[in-house]
């Protein structure tokens, strides 16, 4: 698998119009290629090659582009951009002109026929549109969603016939039990965990399988998309905010056992923690880990080209193979770890929101720290 991915990446050229030769040899080209890869893309690109006539051929398939423009909803196939990603190709649809720059679709202002750039390479006469396209990430999500649905609904059907699953169900059952018994149950508590297990399991398998898919040569980077991790984090935020009980809100807004004057300050901090910091840490952790993993693996593969001069072909290739092999192994672990951490923290946050506080126990915990805690708490109870 790794060897295949090495070959595929080695032969895949950058799709930037500026780099149509297809060869990636220099450090800048490698950087550009990596940054391009970790972005979402509008077509499903498998590999490219240069034919005998010196023409660049791209193998893959186009995906539908669905955008909300100033003239309403517009759809066309991404093949109309002809793999251009630098604003060179202009597509005319619905009386409007569109172009694609760095994986983002821009609508040209009225009257403009080509894209003008300022010195920071920002388009000056075009603006971004709301892009609901079936991008590569959406394909990945659909694929994994379908896969999960097929796997687990078949497992569910197996239980109707007999108590012990057979075949692939035997692999899935321990995973389901793992999420239930190691993540949901201990963090949320015996009383409430059943309500949230469905969400936690969906998220766990969704993230894990997508992380693993990202390690294949198909080059998905779904869990490395901010929009995807943000969506996941916001789901967790909504769930624990909606299911927070009286105790939870009391501890956020009017912390018992603390001098009155400090309470508003604490409330601000707690609110920021619950509504911003927790989901932000969730979304950034997943995004950064997966993106970083992709960048590291690709950089190590790129050693093959960048160090060719100093180490020779054999030296650079073997160094690259050994390093990227080990990092890929670690990435397999990280794929699971990040899914586990995301699900575990979600379960923990939900558990904190639905926890029923044992006040007698709290007395012992806080009584020593704050002398007048007993009096304040007595009012609270």
């Amino acid at each position, binding site marked *: 698998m790794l060897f295949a991915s090495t070959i595929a990446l080695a032969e895949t050229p950058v799709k930037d119009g500026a780099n149509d030769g297809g060869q990636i040899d220099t450090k800048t080209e490698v950087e550009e290629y990596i940054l391009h890869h970790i972005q979402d893309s509008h077509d499903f690109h498998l590999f490219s090659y240069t034919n005998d006539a010196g023409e660049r051929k791209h193998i893959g398939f186009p995906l539908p582009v669905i955008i909300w423009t100033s003239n309403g909803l517009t759809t066309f196939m991404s093949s109309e951009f002809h793999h251009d990603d630098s604003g060179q190709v202009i597509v005319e649809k619905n009386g409007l002109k569109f172009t694609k720059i760095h994986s983002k679709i821009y609508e040209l202002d009225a009257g403009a026929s080509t894209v003008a750039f300022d010195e920071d390479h920002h388009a000056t006469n075009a603006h971004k549109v709301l892009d609901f396209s079936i*991008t590569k990430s959406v394909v990945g999500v659909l694929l994994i969603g379908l896969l*999960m649905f097929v796997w687990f609904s078949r497992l569910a059907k197996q239980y109707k016939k007999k108590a012990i699953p057979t075949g692939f169900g035997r692999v899935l059952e321990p995973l*389901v039990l793992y999420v*239930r018994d190691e993540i949901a149950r201990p963090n949320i508590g015996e009383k409430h965990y059943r309500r949230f297990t*469905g969400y936690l399991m969906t998220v766990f398998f969704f993230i894990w399988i997508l992380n693993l898919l990202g390690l294949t040569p198909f080059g998905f980077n779904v869990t490395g998309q*901010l929009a*995807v991790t*943000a969506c*996941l984090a916001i789901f967790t935020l909504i769930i624990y905010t909606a299911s927070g009980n009286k105790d939870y809100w009391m501890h956020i807004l009017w912390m018992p056992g603390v001098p009155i004057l400090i309470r508003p300050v604490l409330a601000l901090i707690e609110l920021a923690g619950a509504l911003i910091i927790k989901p932000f840490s969730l979304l950034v952790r997943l995004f950064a880990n997966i993106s970083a993993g992709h960048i590291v693996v690709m950089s190590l593969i790129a050693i093959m080209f960048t160090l060719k001069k100093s180490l020779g072909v054999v030296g650079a290739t073997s160094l690259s193979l050994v390093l990227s092999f080990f990092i890929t192994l670690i990435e397999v672990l990280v794929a699971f770890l990040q899914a586990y951490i995301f699900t575990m923290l979600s379960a923990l946050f939900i558990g904190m929101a639905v926890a029923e506080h044992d006040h007698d126990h709290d007395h012992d915990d806080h009584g020593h720290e704050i002398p007048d805690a007993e009096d304040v708490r007595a009012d609270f109870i």
Partner: protein
Amino acid sequence: MDKLLNDFSPGLFVVQTILLLLLIFLMVKFAWKPILNSLNEREEGIQDALDAAEKAKLEMQNLQADNDKLLKEARAEREAMLKEARELKNKMIDDAKTEAQTQANNMIAQAQAAIESEKKSAMAELKSHVSSLSIEIAEKVVRQELSNKDKQFELVESMLGDAKLN
């Protein structure tokens, strides 16, 4: 940060939200709920079976204990019966012995009484005999005396010697 914000695609966010909602709904309805229910049922089934086995074991133990108790009771009863029989036997022997003793004593007493009465009657007969004899002697003495005084004395003395011999 600028680059990150530029990379953030609101459209993808919306699509992902819809897809995730759909996925969660479908998975919960068609996969997680039936799977978790089945797993729970299975676990409860296993727990029930274990409990039943434990209960059966306890019952078995109780039964065993009951059996042991019954056996012990039966043994004790047998012992008691044996003991009673032995006591009864001893008592019967003792009773028979004492009765025999008393009967023997009675018989001895009767025999002694009979001997005593025989002896008394014999003595009485002897006495009457002696008296009649002595009267006879006295009659003869008186007759002799009437004839010869010396001879009378001799006669009395010989008579008395005779009487002594009797």
